[in-house]
């Protein structure tokens, strides 16, 4: 079977605006009102696109199935030579369980098929006319109007292409009592499009509107299992389902200049977690200092003198934890950002950050990897218990192995400003000798809440998303009442969650280049619904 299709899109847009002030009434908004005109303008735009697809479908004996499609796209967003993109896709399916040798040898599998597929997708940039050299009107000089070159023409802009491979299996066991599918996929995106890419300003421009900048890989797997009446005993039956998945993104290739622009620099401020994208590493890595508690004393002494000095004081120590002394036999102070304008000397009650390189200076060289925002696994499962006309349905979801930055807790424990603080600050360090996990209070000063693992928490959770108990009244009984069916149910959403996360809700969105930060998002509300359905 062969199918040919084509489509033409054409869009135009025009805009006009006029602004008036000093109108007679605030509730009227016609442009015809008397008033002072202080601006008007017009704009116009146009875009077109064309595509053709050819698709073919072939099936032999219901066992061997092949699909092929090819899509050719043309767009006004690219210049003449790069305008057309052709994106083929091929998918195959082999129903192995329909083969005689399989039926004979693997009787417990009622269904087994293999689905490999491959395809290319194209993506065009979001703006039009990038391949033109454009000129615009500038401000006047000597009362004469002026024109200036507005952009750098993009001769080399191309379609972003993503090349996807997928290997799927459909499974059925014991007469489809247990069914499932497994999908493994890899998507390689090449010629990745990114907007406003910085270039040296010695060109006269600070950026190119778009560039094809690199390669990215998205890979993962997904498993779904369904048990249909898995267990039955008399009136009792059990259905269950289970799904879990893993997915990660990484950059394979990118120009170093673009990478260094994407990555933020440590600016010696509190609470700043660095975003750092590295080639061949998954996105969402969290970097910061290692938090080691609070200095108990300002002054050092090898043995504690209660209320005066002790071993837990801000002095420089070597690899083995021995205190380093200077020529005069004195200890050396622990510093922050030595030699910069943010220089600070730690005292008792300040946060201890691990001096990774033992140089007595806490700076960007002491920043280490603290974990990934991406879960090792996500998924869900559910089960339904039925007993006669009663059924009880439950659906769970989970995430496992991801880290979340609890920014809400950071702000509430920072004691840096006059905003609300959490009750935990009552345990803060107050006098020499206090042993606590919360540093002292400093108004607009100090470095007691630098980005550190103190606020990086495990975001794993298990949530009962949904539970429902329902009952269907016996049709015989119902008939006597003159209606055709009655059922009733009680359900509840977001029943409970199990997590070690201390914030309101660990289910914070993830997936882009950045890191996952929870600024006290509103937790999901609990809802209880009771329903009664009567069918006449």
């Amino acid at each position, binding site marked *: 079977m062969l199918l040919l299709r084509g489509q*033409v899109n054409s869009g135009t847009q025009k805009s006009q605006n006029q602004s008036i002030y000093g109108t007679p009434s605030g509730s009227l908004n016609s442009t015809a009102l008397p008033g002072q005109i202080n601006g008007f303008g017009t*704009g*116009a*735009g*146009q*875009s*077109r696109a*064309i595509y053709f697809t050819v698709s073919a479908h072939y099936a032999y004996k219901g066992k061997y199935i092949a699909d092929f499609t090819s899509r050719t796209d*043309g767009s*006004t967003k690219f210049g*003449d030579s790069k*305008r057309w993109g052709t994106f083929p896709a091929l998918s195959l399916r082999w129903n192995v369980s329909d083969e005689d040798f399989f039926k004979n040898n693997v009787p417990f599998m009622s269904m087994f098929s293999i689905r490999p597929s491959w395809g290319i997708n194209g993506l065009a940039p979001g703006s*039009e*006319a990038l391949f*033109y050299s*454009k*000129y*615009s009107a*500038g*401000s*006047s*000089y*000597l009362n*004469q*109007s*002026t*024109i*200036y*070159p*507005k952009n*750098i*023409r*993009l*001769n*080399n*802009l191309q379609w972003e292409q993503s090349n996807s491979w997928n290997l799927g299996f459909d499974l059925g066991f014991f007469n489809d009592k247990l069914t499932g599918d497994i999908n493994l996929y890899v998507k390689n995106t090449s010629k990745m499009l990114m907007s406003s890419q*910085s*270039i*040296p*300003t*010695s*060109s*006269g*421009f*600070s950026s*190119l509107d778009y*560039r094809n900048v690199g390669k990215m890989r998205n890979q993962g797997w997904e498993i779904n299992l369904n048990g249909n009446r898995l267990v039955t005993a008399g009136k009792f039956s059990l259905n269950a389902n289970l799904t879990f998945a893993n997915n990660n993104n990484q950059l394979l290739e990118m120009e170093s*200049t673009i990478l*260094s*622009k994407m990555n933020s*620099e440590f600016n010696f401020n509190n609470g700043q977690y660095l975003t750092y994208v590295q080639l061949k590493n998954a996105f969402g890595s969290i970097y910061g200092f290692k938090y080691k508690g609070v200095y108990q004393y300002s002054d050092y002494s090898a043995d504690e003198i209660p209320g005066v000095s002790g071993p837990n004081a801000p002095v420089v120590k070597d690899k083995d934890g021995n205190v380093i002394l200077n020529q005069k036999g004195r200890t*050396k102070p622990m*510093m922050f950002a*030595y*030699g910069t*304008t943010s220089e600070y000397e730690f005292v008792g009650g300040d946060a201890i950050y691990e001096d990774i390189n033992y*140089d*007595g*200076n806490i700076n960007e*060289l002491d920043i280490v990897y603290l974990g990934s925002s991406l879960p090792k696994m996500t998924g869900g499962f559910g089960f339904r218990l039925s007993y006669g006309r009663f059924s009880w349905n439950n659906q769970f979801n989970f995430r496992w192995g991801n880290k979340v930055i609890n920014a809400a807790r950071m702000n509430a424990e920072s004691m840096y400003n006059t905003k609300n603080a959490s009750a935990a600050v009552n345990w803060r360090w107050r006098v020499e000798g206090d042993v606590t996990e919360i540093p002292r209070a400093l108004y607009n000063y100090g470095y007691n809440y630098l980005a550190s693992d103190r606020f990086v928490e495990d975001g794993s959770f298990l949530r009962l998303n949904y539970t429902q108990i329902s009952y269907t009244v016996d049709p015989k009984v119902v008939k006597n009442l003159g209606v055709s069916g009655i059922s009733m149910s009680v359900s509840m959403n977001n029943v409970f969650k199990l997590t070690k996360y201390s914030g309101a809700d660990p289910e914070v969105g993830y997936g882009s280049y950045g890191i996952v930060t929870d600024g006290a998002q509103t937790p999901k509300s609990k809802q209880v619904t009771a329903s009664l359905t009567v069918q006449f």
Partner: protein
Amino acid sequence: MKKIKAIASIAALGLTLSSCNDFLSLVPLNDIVLENFWTEKADVESVLLGTYAQLESSDAITKMSIWGEMRSDNIVGASSANNDILQITKDNILETNSNVSWKVFYDVINRANTVIYYAPIVADKDPNYSPDELKANVAEATALRALCYFYLIRAYKDVPYVTRPSKDDDEEFIVAASKFDDILDNIISDLESVKDDAVNKYAKEEANTSRITKCAINAMLADMYLWKGDWDKCISYAEAVLDRKIYEWEELKRKEGSDCVIELIKDMPLIPETVAGGDLGNAYNDIFGKGNSFESIFELAFMRNQSVSNSFVEDYYGSNSNQSGSLQPNDELMNNVAAGTNPVFTKYDARYVENINSQHITKYVNDNISFNLSTGTMTNRSASIRPSQNPANWIIYRLTDVMLMKAEAEVMKAKDQADVAVQDSLFKEAFKIVVGINNRSTNRVASGDTLKYTNYSSSIRTMEELVLLERRRELMFEGKRWFDLVRVARRDGDTKRLVAWIIPKHTENQSAIRIKLADMDAIYFPYLKDELKVNTLLKQNPAYEEDEYISKN
């Protein structure tokens, strides 16, 4: 039959595809595109004026002040200044300071490059575009480009040297920095080759000072040769400028007769501070108030009642709604003027009253000023401060600037002369210029010279510093002083004098500034960090290399 059908359908498909290409060729409706542009001479003129428009953007003028004066002993930051500006006035400049971006100057350069590239193409298309007009336009664009590079090398020393327009992404944008001397030689030879093509006189009166003329190119060449250390060339180009001004003065006299107030002061045609014995302020009002004055050579023009205004002056010097801008005069300039012990201004110096009023910079801010100083105490002062939407033209070159370049070159030339008599005559030439300019502003033309030659003629050093001091007084707040200091340091081969001059201004971190500025590289600005990130061939000025690995222990 089947074959024919197949061929027909393939042909039809081919036809639709090629017509599709036409269908997909859309020209943007909001912009002018290259394909429809560069067809007539008006197009060249528009982009050429766009080059000026960008050079007078407040971003560019602010850069001229940041690079040329904010680090000098003329200016300190006011408490209202933003931190990045304060750090520059305090000479604590980091590569992350947004004010060290040079983007706006390269934008001007790119526009000039665009004109230079496309103007000859237009000449082929437009029969009305004569070869002389083409040459004049190219000369103008070349001069603007040279001026930008001259600013850039004085600020950063080595910078990327780009002479082609950035048209499309086939070009290589990552360009390594060229050396100061190479760029200086290049722009000098560029200017030498176009100077005879430039316009001598425009039809529009104000264009003679607000667009590049032959006289402006001569002034630029005098300045560049002074930096290069070619004293003879500097003197001869300065003389060419003076000759032109004398010619214009004679023309003006013929036209205006006895209404012409311009006088020859020590052989220089200058606007007097007082007309017919009246109050002082006349020169200021003409040069900085009205703008496009007789003494002007090249300035960036702002029109009254237009949306474009000189917001640099409003924001940094002040306006009548906000008299205190981000910058203030250094205390040294204001103390003890009336007592007569100020090291810069005498109590008779009109320029003090014109430039400074109670902790505020008033140059370019006042529209009009008049006062009397005949007794050495100021009386009768009346001034009108410009409102916001300040239309003050920003002056890049004016006659006294070029004359003082000549004086400096003459003093430096004397250094190489063994013959005392030759040396003395050079000194006298230089002194004549200085005293002429000083006489004008202290209004004592009639009652004898204000400076005494024998007080300064004892050595090269005293003569040189006299010229520099007069430059400081005359060109104060015009974005020149720091460049003067850099030029002196380059000549000396060390920063001792530069440091000695600027150190009294700093109330904090004096020793740190002393140590930092002992390094010759530190008198230039660092490249912006973001620029280094995208330009991998650029190497940071060693004086500003990140001290990431400062070891504490």
